[in-house]
């Protein structure tokens, strides 16, 4: 079977609108995600955490991604190899935002790492969310492994791997291109590059010879697309198409989405709102208002409600226990196999 690589110039509005109910759901989770991230930033600034990193500015892409995931545990379901800007995806999958506060506050109750890891470093075996780790791009070296297991198993489960633009300079990105496209051994992996045109303080310009990063897939016969990740409807369609392709063809797809970095890189760079970048949430809200799907007031009320809820949750989380020093020796070795069958 041969597949011609498809590349799409960024497009913003040619796709038809999504149904109002879906738009409302998208908006709800995008808003909740934004409020969560702003809460986490505030927690950091008020000394309720040591470090913040997250995805405000990527909601329009990451929320549809989470909605479209075939969620569950094991090879029948999708595996997710994400990075540290994926709150929108997790919330869309049903994660409790309060758990993110717990990780921010590094409490013993943090379900993702027990107070060990930074905010935004999710792990959820029940949903095939592989532990997010800080090193850039290593997830791309692991992704073809889960995808290979899925190809072998049959069914519709796919692997989704996501990272930033700067990180594609690491050899691991190339590793994923190579290992996913071996002739006759192609695997069902959707590679996603969320391109905010920055790596911490380093601009895209001057570091990349590529016009589109996605073009790197073409030499490998990998199907590619480039989309406006600031538009949730465009993103939804593009993701759906790419995922359908991967699910059905059992072959790789490389999707590049342009996104914003609305609060800078992380708390290390101040975590202040950037007025120059496109705010996907504001843009979507304007559209929804214009289309009469939601009123300004309804959206403001919803924001106030989520804000209040998470503020109160912060107070509760503050009272939750910190991990004990002795627990550093817990979970060094497993005594039985929990990811597969036990032998």
């Amino acid at each position, binding site marked *: 079977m041969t597949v011609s690589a498809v590349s799409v110039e960024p497009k913003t509005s040619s796709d038809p609108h999504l149904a109002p109910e879906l738009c409302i759901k998208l908006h709800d989770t995008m808003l909740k995600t934004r409020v969560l991230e702003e809460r986490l930033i505030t927690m950091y600034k008020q000394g309720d955490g040591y470090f913040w990193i997250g995805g405000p500015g990527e909601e329009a892409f990451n929320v549809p991604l989470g909605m479209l995931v075939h969620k569950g545990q094991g090879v029948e379901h999708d595996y997710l190899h994400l990075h540290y800007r994926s709150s929108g995806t997790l919330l869309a999958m049903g994660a409790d935002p309060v758990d993110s506060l717990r990780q921010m506050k590094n409490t013993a109750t943090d379900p993702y790492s027990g107070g060990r890891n930074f905010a935004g470093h999710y*792990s959820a075996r029940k949903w095939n969310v592989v532990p997010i780790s800080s090193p850039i791009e290593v997830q791309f070296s692991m992704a*073809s492994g889960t995808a290979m297991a899925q190809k072998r198993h049959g069914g519709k489960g796919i692997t989704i791997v996501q990272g930033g633009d700067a990180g594609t300079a690491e050899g691991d990105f190339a590793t994923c291109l190579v290992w996913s496209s071996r002739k006759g051994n192609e695997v069902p992996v959707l590679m996603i590059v969320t391109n905010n045109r920055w790596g911490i303080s380093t601009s895209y310009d001057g570091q990349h010879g590529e016009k589109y990063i996605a073009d790197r897939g073409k030499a490998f016969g990998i199907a590619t697309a480039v989309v406006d990740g600031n538009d949730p409807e465009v993103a939804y369609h593009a993701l759906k198409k790419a995922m359908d392709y991967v699910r059905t063809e059992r072959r790789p797809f490389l999707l590049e989405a342009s996104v914003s970095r609305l609060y800078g890189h992380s708390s290390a760079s101040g975590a202040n709102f950037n007025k120059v970048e496109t705010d996907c949430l504001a843009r979507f809200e304007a559209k929804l208002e214009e289309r009469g799907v939601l009123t300004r007031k309804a959206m403001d009320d919803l924001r106030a409600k989520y804000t209040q809820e998470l503020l109160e949750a912060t107070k509760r989380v503050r009272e939750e226990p910190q991990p004990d020093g002795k627990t550093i020796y817990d979970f060094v070795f497993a005594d039985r196999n929990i990811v597969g069958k036990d032998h």
Partner: protein
Amino acid sequence: MATLVQAIRMGLHVGEERLGVTDIFGEDVGPPLGGVFTATQGLKTAWNSPLDERGVIGTAMGLALAGQKPVCEIQFSDYIYNTIDLLKLAGSMYWSSNGDWNLPMVCMTPVGAGIRGSIYHSHSFDATATHIPGWKIVMPSNPLDAYGLLLSAIADPNPVFYLAPKALLRVKAGPGELLPGEPADEKALSKMIDAPVGDRTTWKPEWPNLETLFVPIGKAKTVRPGKHVTVVSYGRTLPLSVKAADELMAEGIDAEVIDLRSLHPYDWEAIAESVKRTNRVVFVNEETEITNFGEHLIRRTVDELFYHLHAPPKLVAGAFVPGIGLADNLERASVPQKNDIAEAIRATALHTP
């Protein structure tokens, strides 16, 4: 009498048949070659990977996360050093997810000198491996342990390094050390499981009916009891240590030799029990000697057994130079030889304060 490499191959076969191994892979691991040392010939789940060690380790991690049981190979441990970050990640996955995901994978790699492999086919890996938390590490020095440790490594729910001493791969099992189910006639065995020279496209191995045998990870083996001095070693230097000890009997020195076999967790009890009896200890390995695992064992020895010692604990290890040179003289001067070990045992045994 299987060779060590045949024992590995049979262990992998049993791993496929009975322990759920799904993938045995790496560079040149699959047909037609079946591994540069023949370790993976004829195995039904063996396949060739791209020439990319990071992909090998990463893919093994992905397979393990998806409930498979991969055994991956790095062709020579010399070529594992571009993956240390991934190995650290693998070792930390269970811990950093607070017990959410374990990672059951085996990483095999041939280690050490002794085959005139020059700068990039002579490396040891035990110093680096023992410094990566979250991995278990085994290193057999004979076919029976090679088999039994491999089955334990495969059955373990954690990532396990399986370090195969290159120089011993063709070494045969001693008398009475048949693998359970192995045919007694070594020629018959070879006919059954060694791929023919030349065209192999239609060849299929005929596997003996093997039983499982689990050598527990973390248990050392006293291969030569003795009373004057304890020698702790593993891998290529283990049989050399035994030979050195045997020869020293002529001088009236009776050394006890322990094959550590597992480097993490390691059998401290066995070491301590022996040192408490002999009051003298020599640690032998072939890694370069600065920040060497044997130095950890010495540290623990002085920490816990200081007043049992009648002589300073000694390390025999590789010279701290950037490579192992090709010429005989260079290789010999770089890694411990039998005489170097004998000298250290003798000096330690005869040491008087």
